[in-house]
């Protein structure tokens, strides 16, 4: 006689959480491509001296503005005769770090504000008006204020850029929270006596990751590009330190004579953003426990 215990249910062997995630991630070809690009870029940043022959800040006015595929400079040289490849490679160090740190900081701020606004109806109007205020406050003024109060370090660049991300992020998060908090499992957690903090951090946040990932990965591009305008104001990396955003904005003057000075760092940024985007998409799907069901 059959009982519940003897039913021939074939148990899948359970793997660790991260193994599942990684396995799923590796099924997604685009995400793998993204991962490879990200890893390559990180390696590139770490091992910069080994994969470049030229000093990124060494000028050679005599051989300036060489086009791509010139001898000795496969990506050409800039206005000062500095090797563009070296500058891209070394530039990854700043651009990637600032991009990642700034977006993360902005996410933290935006998520906290959006979460509170969405979760507590009483705070909603207040927080959303603060968000409006942040939104309307001119970015340059903010940068100048940061220079005046905090000084000009690279950390402060990340702070400035992250503050720019907060309003958008907060709005997006708030929208998701508004709908997730009405879900029954949240009510269930309440009935178990869970604190608001626990509900927000452990139950709402993990279920609101999809739009956050889309936002964060798209934001990388903006963050890297804005670094340029800030170093131009004197905040953050100062010349001759290589940095992608600044390379683009400096190359602007030479768009007609040497377009590669903008195109090359532009492609570098695009690749990064592309990589983070597809990786983010892949990660979102991999983290979604329902993925196996949805084919």
């Amino acid at each position, binding site marked *: 006689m059959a009982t519940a215990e003897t039913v021939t249910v074939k148990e899948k062997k359970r793997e660790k959480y991260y193994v599942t995630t990684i396995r799923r991630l590796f099924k997604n070809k685009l995400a793998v491509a993204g991962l490879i690009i990200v890893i390559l870029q990180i390696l590139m940043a770490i091992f910069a001296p080994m994969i470049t022959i030229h000093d990124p800040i060494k000028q050679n006015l005599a051989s300036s503005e060489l086009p791509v595929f010139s001898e000795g400079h496969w990506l050409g040289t800039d206005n000062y005769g500095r090797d563009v490849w070296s500058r891209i490679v070394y530039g990854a160090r700043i651009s990637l770090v600032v991009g990642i740190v700034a977006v993360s900081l902005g996410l933290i701020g935006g998520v906290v504000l959006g979460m509170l606004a969405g979760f507590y109806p009483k705070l909603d109007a207040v927080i959303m008006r603060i968000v409006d*205020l942040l939104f309307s406050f001119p970015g340059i003024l903010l940068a100048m204020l940061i220079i005046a109060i905090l000084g000009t370090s690279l950390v402060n660049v990340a702070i400035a850029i992250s503050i720019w991300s907060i309003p958008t992020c907060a709005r997006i998060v708030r929208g998701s929270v508004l709908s997730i908090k009405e879900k029954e499992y949240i009510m269930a957690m309440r009935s178990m006596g869970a604190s608001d903090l626990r509900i927000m951090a452990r139950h709402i946040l993990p279920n609101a990751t999809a739009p956050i990932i889309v936002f964060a990965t798209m934001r990388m591009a903006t963050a890297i590009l804005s670094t340029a305008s800030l170093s131009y104001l004197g905040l953050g990396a100062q010349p001759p330190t290589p940095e992608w955003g600044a390379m683009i*904005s400096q190359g602007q003057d030479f768009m007609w004579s040497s377009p590669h000075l903008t195109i090359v760092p532009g492609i570098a940024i695009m690749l990064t953003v592309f990589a983070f985007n597809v990786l983010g998409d892949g990660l979102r799907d991999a983290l979604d426990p329902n993925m196996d069901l949805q084919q």
Partner: protein
Amino acid sequence: MVALIIRRIFQLAFLLFGISFLVFSSMYIAPGNPAAIIGGPTATASDIAAIEANLGLDDPFLTQYVRYVSNAVQGDFGYSYQTSQPVAEAIAVRFPNTLKLAIASMVVAVIIGIITGLISALRQNSWLDASATTFALAGISIPNFWLGALLILIFAVNLQWLPVGGLSSPFYTIEGIKQLILPAITLGTGSAAMIARMTRSSMLEVIRADYVRTARAKGVKERDVIWIHTLKNAMIPIITVIGLNFGFLLGGTIITEKVFAINGVGRLMIDAIAARDFPMVQGSVLLVATLFVVVNLLVDIIYTYIDPRIKYD
């Protein structure tokens, strides 16, 4: 609805108050003296003192702020330090251009964004979807000045189909429309990218909903299934993004305005900040804040038309 509007107006008043204080104090804290800029490199100490006295900059911070607010409440937003033009007038000249540009680029962004988003949602994981994604990412990574210059080179300089810059003709004339095309594309691309991604993800969420199946079970034409039964339900996050972008565009967009020689609010604000032209900065920031609140209010009202379940009371 009326209640919502009235409540927002109340909140707006507080917001404007807060932001004016914030702007005022940051301009005060940030280095750079408007008098020194007006005086220029040759100005002597006495020149600068005279200018300061003339502009009332020698008063203490609070006196200046209170004076500003009490005038502003009465509708007087002061005079530009630089040009001594009334701030309200200076903004009034530029805002129509910014508005034209914002609307035109939003039209471009919405059309391109929604169509690409729809295509990639309906053909999820196909090569069409992949190219739409790539397009979106390119759209957000290309610096505006670069795209702008490229468009000028191709369409204005080489083909000579469109003018290089300016926005002087009225928008309803052929010339006016021609002037808007390139800047609108330049500016719209970034928003289009965001809208496309959002459309894709929110379409994917509703495309398998039961009511879509119901519509098919009724024999509704596929076109109507997508545009009426599905898209309308997917519209809320898309509208949010459109609203955010539109609010952002209404604040003026410095680079596009520069590249296409458009006399807009963004340039006005940036120039005013560079010149520490306090009243002008204040005026333009307050305008942007107001517009942003208005746009959000509109978005909230549109929500209720799109989704009748949303109520604000």
